């Protein structure tokens, strides 16, 4: 099957308080698109030619895994943003956050620490585990918690390309801005 770059649910200049239009243009228009193109080229004639991204993430290795996971990760990242986000979680999601992390602030602090201490390129995740608890994890490069049987709810891209044009070396300045555009309604829908 041919993988396609999904349309963004907002325009490139919709998140400029946090992420510039220039960054969206490169990150979505070039990086995300390149992962889609690479994946489509790599799967031809392999057992993954008709596989879903989820199967590729769970089973593939090397370039097919890297590009397949990067397609999924970026879609998941971009779709969590909104220019008019629900600014904080409510209902079941909030109760889960409070029972597993104490408060929303404590959760964000812990997530930010994981994002800051991830060395090199990668992703920080909030996922639901098999015991029904939330957990925060770091994944290098294209890593994705689906591979470990977790259900991802939220991710932050800490590859330098995600923030370098706007924040350069200051990953710590990117994180609070990231939270300003996360739409908690999307995260709650993912929890189901």
């Amino acid at each position, binding site marked *: 099957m041919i993988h396609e770059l999904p349309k963004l649910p907002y325009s490139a200049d919709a998140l400029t308080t946090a992420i510039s239009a220039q960054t969206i243009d490169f990150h979505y228009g*070039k990086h995300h698109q390149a992962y889609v193109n690479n994946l489509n080229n790599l799967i031809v004639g392999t057992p993954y030619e008709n596989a879903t991204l989820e199967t590729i993430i769970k089973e593939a290795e090397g370039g097919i895994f890297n590009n397949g996971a990067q397609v999924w990760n970026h879609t998941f990242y971009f779709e969590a943003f909104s220019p008019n986000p629900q600014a904080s979680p409510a209902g079941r999601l909030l109760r889960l956050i409070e029972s597993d992390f104490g408060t929303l602030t404590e959760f964000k602090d812990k997530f930010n620490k994981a994002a800051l201490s991830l060395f*090199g390129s990668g992703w920080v995740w909030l996922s639901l585990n098999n015991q029904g608890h939330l957990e925060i994890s770091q994944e290098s490069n294209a890593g994705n918690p689906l591979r470990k049987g977790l259900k991802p709810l939220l991710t932050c891209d800490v590859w330098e390309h995600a923030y*370098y044009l706007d924040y350069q070396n200051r990953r710590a300045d990117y994180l609070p801005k990231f939270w300003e555009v996360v739409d908690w309604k999307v995260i709650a829908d993912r929890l189901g």
Partner: protein
Amino acid sequence: MSFKLPSLQYDYKSLEPYIDAATMEIHHTKHHAAYTNNLNSAIEGTSIDLQPIEEILREVSKHSPVVRNNGGGYYNHNLYWEIMSPKGGGEPNGTLLKRIQADFGSFAEFKDKFSAAAASRFGSGWAWLVLRDNKLVIFSTPNQDNPLMDVAEVKGFPLLGLDVWEHAYYLKYQNRRPEYIQNFWNVISWDAVQHRFESAR
């Protein structure tokens, strides 16, 4: 003892148009400085406090990941600044060129192989030209690992290193890493690489 951030032998703007001044300044004063400071904090008051960086790296598996990451970052950037020059480019000559021809066929073949190693490193890392058992080899490492480390897949003495972390090129080249790699050839100081080659033998 604490490690010092070296000053560069050339101006930040002097590698333009291949590497821009803003990238050079942030790379040196922010990234390299952070690796240096983090390394110093990690080793302060420990048994490796007085060791040269090469020795720390040689047994890096005994230390924390903080030492591996920042010790590597400190050494690798020292090397990166050392092997570039505004008067760089062209080709090596003498013994190094002969060795390159013997081990890779020709300078052009060497260049292609090194560029491919740099382009295909997924995520953050470095491409290396290494002297190992008196033979040249090309490979890449993830993050701030390097061929001096006991954890490296290929070990040897690094003669030439290319930083392919996105911070090394993103302000000027964005997603176009191959263009950065192509332009790196214009700023390589073959004198400095030859010097490392001689000191390694």
